[in-house]
């Protein structure tokens, strides 16, 4: 089975620029699924060659899909030639292709990080299920990014929830198990709410394809109730304040590469679904009141998450609460996306896209670096970091670069995203969101500098465990990408505008 996608890929690469898009889209699902099966056949905590080949092929295929979208625009594809509604319809627009590539890159980083883990840390009965779940998670993410209809999104979302919960539980500690259970209950509740909404929409429109729902859309009572269910379910899954309670324990109790994947990508999946539904078929119902309401919740997340991160004694809890806060920025962008001014909407879209990507890179780097620091210090407490600035300079540097992006300081993707959102807020005269954006930056500085403060204190010597160099390299690379994105964002942003969901058009 492993030969088939590799051979296809080779054929594709040889055919040069005339690559057909459709197999590429399918490959984005097939490759991770194949490796999920392959690694499950003889599950083991370490399958270096198999995993590395999988990650490599996955990255190459994703990059080719992105390149194809960049050159040729949006592509629709019916998997196996079966058309909707019984077949699986896929659609690779700019945001989908970009997120497929982002997933491959971050999964690559997290996978390599995991491969570098010393044998001593791989003991535990559940560890051998790491790789099957890891690749399944990748396939589920790609399914969500590429889904063109409401039901495929549901399937992707469920697969995602299950593999994510499994990955949290793999850590095997009681904290991880209870966090996994809580996460599972929240995820199940969220997806059921979503499914109910989908059921209502199907009853109303007789179709599940986003495009057909959009074309027949009418703001009936059923539709409003359906969108309410869908929104509530997806907000729960995105951990939007005040529905975020499940996130910090799950993201902090998991293994470092799992935390990184969860914070960077998994929570974004439900957000992208929300975006596709509200800006697609639901656009007529996205009135300013609704949008401002979502924005207010986002602002609540920024303040509450930031404040909690400042309070927490535990490093990974700090980083996890930072995710809650950073997700708030995504929702703050929503009222700006429906602004009356074309300029404001264009800026808001670019800013939102950049925030999604740069937060994913920065947060995965930060979780990986935190994992390294914790392994070196042997404690998860922030105060125990005293002295790491001397002994773990690379890990701390990676943490620092990631922090620069999260704080929105230049040069970084986080800064450019904040800048664009700020421009959107000012262009649309929505000053209150500008204030929220700036306050969020200050709060972020408040909690990340707690970490630096602790690490610059002179600590006792000789109490540090050596960590693999590969850990630092991966974290540095991901953080470096978050920084570089600040200088070179126009190219990626151009692609992410293809098939943009803004109905009134991007200028």
């Amino acid at each position: 089975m492993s030969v088939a996608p590799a051979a296809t890929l080779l054929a594709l690469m040889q055919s040069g620029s005339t690559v057909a898009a459709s197999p590429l889209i399918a490959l984005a699902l097939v490759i991770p699924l194949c490796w999920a099966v392959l690694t499950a056949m003889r599950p083991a905590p370490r399958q270096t060659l198999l995993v590395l080949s999988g990650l490599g092929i996955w990255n190459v295929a994703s990059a080719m899909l992105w390149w194809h979208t960049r050159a040729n625009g949006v592509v629709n594809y019916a998997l196996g030639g079966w058309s909707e509604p019984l077949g699986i319809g896929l659609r690779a627009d700019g945001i989908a292709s970009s997120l497929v590539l982002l997933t491959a890159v971050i999964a690559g980083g997290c996978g390599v990080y995991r491969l570098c883990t010393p044998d001593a840390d791989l003991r535990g009965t559940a560890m051998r299920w790491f790789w099957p779940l890891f690749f399944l998670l990748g396939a589920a993410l790609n399914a969500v990014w590429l889904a063109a209809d409401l039901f495929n999104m549901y399937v992707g979302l469920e697969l995602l929830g299950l593999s994510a919960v499994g990955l949290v539980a793999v850590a095997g500690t009681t904290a991880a198990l209870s966090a996994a259970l809580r996460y599972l209950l929240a995820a199940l509740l969220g997806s059921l709410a979503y499914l109910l909404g989908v059921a209502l929409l199907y009853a109303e429109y007789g179709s599940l394809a986003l495009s057909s729902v959009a074309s027949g859309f009418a703001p009936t009572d059923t539709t409003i109730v359906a969108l309410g269910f869908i929104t509530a379910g997806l907000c729960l899954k995105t951990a939007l304040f005040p529905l975020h309670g499940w996130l910090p324990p799950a993201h902090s109790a998991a293994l470092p590469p799992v935390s990184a994947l969860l914070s960077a990508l998994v929570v974004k999946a439900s957000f992208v679904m929300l975006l596709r539904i509200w800006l697609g078929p639901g656009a007529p119902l996205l009135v300013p009141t609704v949008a401002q309401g979502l924005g207010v919740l986002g602002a609540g997340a920024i303040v509450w998450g930031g404040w909690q991160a400042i309070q927490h004694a535990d490093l990974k809890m700090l980083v996890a609460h930072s995710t809650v806060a950073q997700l708030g920025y995504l929702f703050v962008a929503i009222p700006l996306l429906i602004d009356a001014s074309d300029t404001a909407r264009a800026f808001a879209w670019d800013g939102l896209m950049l925030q999604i990507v740069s937060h994913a890179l920065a947060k995965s780097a930060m979780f990986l670096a935190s994992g390294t620091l914790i392994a070196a210090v042997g404690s998860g407490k922030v105060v125990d970091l005293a002295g790491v600035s001397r002994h773990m300079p690379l890990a701390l540097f990676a943490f620092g670069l990631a922090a620069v992006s999260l704080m929105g300081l230049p040069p970084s993707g986080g800064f450019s995203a904040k800048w664009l959102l700020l421009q959107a807020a000012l262009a649309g005269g929505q000053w209150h969101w500008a204030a929220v954006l700036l306050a969020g930056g200050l709060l972020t500085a408040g909690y990340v500098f707690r970490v630096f403060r602790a690490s610059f204190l002179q600590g006792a010597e000789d109490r540090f465990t050596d960590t693999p160099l590969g850990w630092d390299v991966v974290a540095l690379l991901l953080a470096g990408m978050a920084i570089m994105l600040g200088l070179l964002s126009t190219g990626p942003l151009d692609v992410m505008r293809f098939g943009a969901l803004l109905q009134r058009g991007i200028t």
Partner: protein
Amino acid sequence: MTTLLQSAPLFYALVGALLVAIAFTAFAAHTHVLRRLLAFNVMGTGSFLILVGLAQHTRGPDPVPQALVLTGIVVAVASTALALVVFRRWYEATGHVVLPEDERA
């Protein structure tokens, strides 16, 4: 009331809604993980009834909702299985049946 009696699918859908409501109440009221899991399963069944019933009520017999529900059932079974595995491990490790956050509350 008359429409309800005339249309069996709508009746199913309403029963489904009732089930969802009951199960949601149970989900919120109980803290025992297994009870919550049961509530979730009942909730799932309720929403499948809505999915099929409502669609058939508005547009007659239709294979699509059936296919969707089938997928949904598979997902629900898988989730329940995963939940049970994780719960059992956790129960063996700690002896608790209620999640720590709920215990405090």
